C-alpha cells in the first residue's frame, strides 16, 4: 500500500483522517500497526478491505495484494477478494458475530466460497473450530455466540476469518475486549496459524506490549501518519521517534526485578484531524522539539534499518536513551 488517504468532506473543508500511509508486508509475515485511538489505524484496516463508506472516502496510489491490483476492482470483484484473499477479525466478537445464527453456521457461511455444498461447508466449519482450539467443536458449532465465553467467541471469529483460506488476515484489536490471560492465548493462536498457513497478519493494536514475540514488523501511527516503521527487533530496543520511545517507556515493565517506578506519560493529547499543526503533528508534545519541527513536517526516511519521520531521528537514542 502506498499513499493511502482517507478523507472526510470535500474541497477546502476536507480533512485527512489517514494522511499518506505506506505499508508493505511479505507473505507469511506479521505486522503490528500500533497507535492511539484516533491515530487512523482502524481506518487503515478498513481501507485495506475496501470497506470505507460514505461519508468517508479512501484513495491510494498503490494497493496491491499479491498479483491483484485492488485499485482496479469493481465492487463485485472486491466481494470475491474479501474473505478469499483477505479476511478480518474485529474487536468485539459479541457485537461482530450475528446473534441469530449459530457459530457453526456463520463459519460455514464463510467456508461456502470454497466448498461445494452445505454439508461440506459445515464439516469445514467444525474443522476450523478445531484448528483454533475450540474444545468439542462438533457440539459447540451449534451454540450461539452469546452462549460462549469471550475467548471462545473470538476463536469463532478467527475460525470464520480462516474459513476461506485468506493470504492475509487483518486483526483489528482482536484482544482488546478480552481478559488478559485470554489475550495471550489468542495472540499465540494467531501466531501459530500464521506460521502453519503462511498467512500474513496485520495486527492492529494500541498496546505495544503484545508486539514482542509476535510481530516481525512494527508500524507506529500518530495523527493519521506513520511515524516509525521497521523490523520489530530493531525498533523496539532502539526507537528513533520520540513518540515510539514514549510508547515503549510507558509499558509497565514485565521484568519483576525492575524497580517500581511511576509510569511515564506523554503530556497532552493527539490533535484531532482538523486541528493538526503545520509541521510535525507530535511537536507540541515532544521533549525534543525544535523550531524546525513546528515549521516543517518531517518525511519518512531510512535511518538505522527502519523508516522514521523525525528531524532528529539520529539523535533520539542518545538524547532519550534506549528503551530497554
Amino acid at each position: 500500500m502506498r499513499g493511502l488517504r482517507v478523507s472526510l468532506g470535500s474541497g477546502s473543508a476536507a480533512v485527512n483522517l489517514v494522511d499518506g500511509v505506506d505499508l508493505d508486508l511479505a507473505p507469511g509475515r506479521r505486522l503490528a500497526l500500533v497507535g492511539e485511538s484516533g491515530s487512523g489505524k482502524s481506518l487503515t484496516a478498513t481501507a485495506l478491505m475496501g470497506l470505507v463508506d460514505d461519508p468517508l472516502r479512501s484513495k491510494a496510489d498503490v494497493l496491491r495484494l499479491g498479483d491483484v491490483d485492488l485499485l482496479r476492482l469493481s465492487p463485485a470483484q472486491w466481494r470475491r477478494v474479501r474473505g478469499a484473499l483477505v479476511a478480518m477479525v474485529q474487536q468485539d466478537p459479541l457485537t461482530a458475530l450475528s446473534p441469530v445464527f449459530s457459530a457453526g453456521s456463520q463459519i460455514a457461511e464463510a467456508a461456502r466460497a470454497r466448498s461445494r455444498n452445505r454439508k461440506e461447508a459445515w464439516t469445514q466449519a467444525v474443522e476450523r473450530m478445531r484448528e483454533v482450539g475450540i474444545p468439542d467443536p462438533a457440539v459447540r458449532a451449534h451454540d450461539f455466540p452469546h452462549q460462549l465465553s469471550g475467548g471462545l467467541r473470538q476463536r469463532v471469529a478467527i475460525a470464520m476469518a480462516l474459513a476461506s483460506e485468506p493470504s492475509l488476515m487483518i486483526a483489528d484489536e482482536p484482544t482488546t475486549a478480552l481478559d488478559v490471560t485470554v489475550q495471550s492465548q489468542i495472540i499465540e493462536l494467531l501466531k501459530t496459524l500464521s506460521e502453519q498457513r503462511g498467512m500474513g497478519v496485520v495486527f492492529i493494536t494500541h498496546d505495544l506490549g503484545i508486539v514482542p514475540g509476535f510481530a516481525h514488523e512494527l508500524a507506529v501511527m500518530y495523527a493519521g501518519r506513520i511515524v516509525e516503521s521497521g523490523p520489530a527487533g530493531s525498533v523496539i530496543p532502539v526507537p528513533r521517534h520520540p513518540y515510539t520511545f514514549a510508547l515503549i517507556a510507558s509499558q509497565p515493565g514485565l521484568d519483576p526485578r525492575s524497580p517500581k517506578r511511576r509510569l511515564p506519560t506523554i503530556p497532552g493529547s493527539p490533535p484531532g484531524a482538523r486541528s493538526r499543526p503545520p509541521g510535525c503533528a507530535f511537536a507540541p508534545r515532544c521533549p525534543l522539539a525544535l523550531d524546525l519541527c513546528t515549521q516543517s513536517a518531517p518525511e519518512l526516511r531510512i535511518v538505522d534499518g527502519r523508516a522514521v519521520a523525525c528531524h532528529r531521528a539520529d539523535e533520539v537514542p542518545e538524547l532519550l536513551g534506549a528503551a530497554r
Partner: protein
Amino acid sequence: MSPRIRYVLSRIVGLLLTLFAVFTLTFLLTFAVPQDPARSVVGPKGTAAQLEQVREELGLNDPILIQYGRYLGNVATADLGYSYAQRRPVVQIIGERLPYTVVLAAGAIAFQIGVGIPVGLVAAARAGRTFDRVSLAGSLLVISLPGFWVGLVLLFLLAYTWPIFPLGGTGSPAALVLPAVTLGLAGAAWTSRVMRTEAYEFLRSDVVRGLRAKGMSPRRILLQHTVRAASGPVLTMLAIDLGYFLGGAVLIESVFSWPGIGLTSFQALRQNDIPLLMGCVIVGSVFILALNLFADLIRMKVDPRVSI
C-alpha cells in the same frame, strides 16, 4: 422442570387470571346497562306477568353472587348464553361469524407482512434517499388517516366508480381485498417504520461489517441476515395486531358489511343483546390475551438472546 417451561406455565397462569378478571368485569358491566334483560326478551309489548316469568327463567332474581357463579360455570363450559335478538345460542352465532373475522384478520396480517417488511427493508437499505423519504412521509400519512374513512374512499373509488372490487359483503374472494387492505394499512405503515429502524441499525453494526468483510453481497446480507436480525420487534407487533384483529374490527367490518365478530358485536350493542355482546367480548379478549402471550413466546424463539 426447565426454567423455560416454568416460565411458559407461569405466563399461562397469568393469562387465565387476566381472563378471569375480564369475565368478571364483563359480568359486572351488564348490570350497568340500563336495559332490563327481561324486557329485551319479551319485547316492548310484554306484560308484567311475562316479564316476571322471564326473570325467573333467566335467574335474574337470584342474588348477584349466584348469578356470577352460574355465569362462570357457563363460560367454562362454553355456554355463552342465548341471544335475545336472534333467539339462538350465542356460541352458534359466534361460531358462524368467527371464521369471517379470522379470514379478514389473516388477510390484514398478510398485507402488513407483504407490504410493511419489504418497504422497511428497502428504505433502510437506501437510507436518506428518495424511497426512504417518500415511504416515511407515506407511512405518517397513512397512520393519520382514520380506518373507516380509508375504507369508504377505497369502496367509492375501487368498487363504485371503477367496479374492480365488490361493494362489500363476502360474495367472492375479491371481496376480501379491500377490507383486508383497509384493516392492514395502518399496521403496514407501522411495520415498515419499525422494520426500517431496526434494519438501519443492523446495517450499521459490526455484524454487517463482518459480513461485508466475508465478501457477502448486499442482497444476501439484506435477505438472509437483516430480515432475521431486524424482525424481532416486528413479529411481536404483528402478533399483537393479530390478537386485536381477531377481537373483531368493528368499524372496518361495518363499512364493508363483513359479517365477522366486530359487526356482530356492533349489532348486538345496538339491539341491547347483552348475551351476544358479552360473548363477543369474551371471545375477543381470549384472542387478544392469547396472542399477546404468543407474541412473547415467538420473540423468545426467534431471538436466541432473549432468555428468561
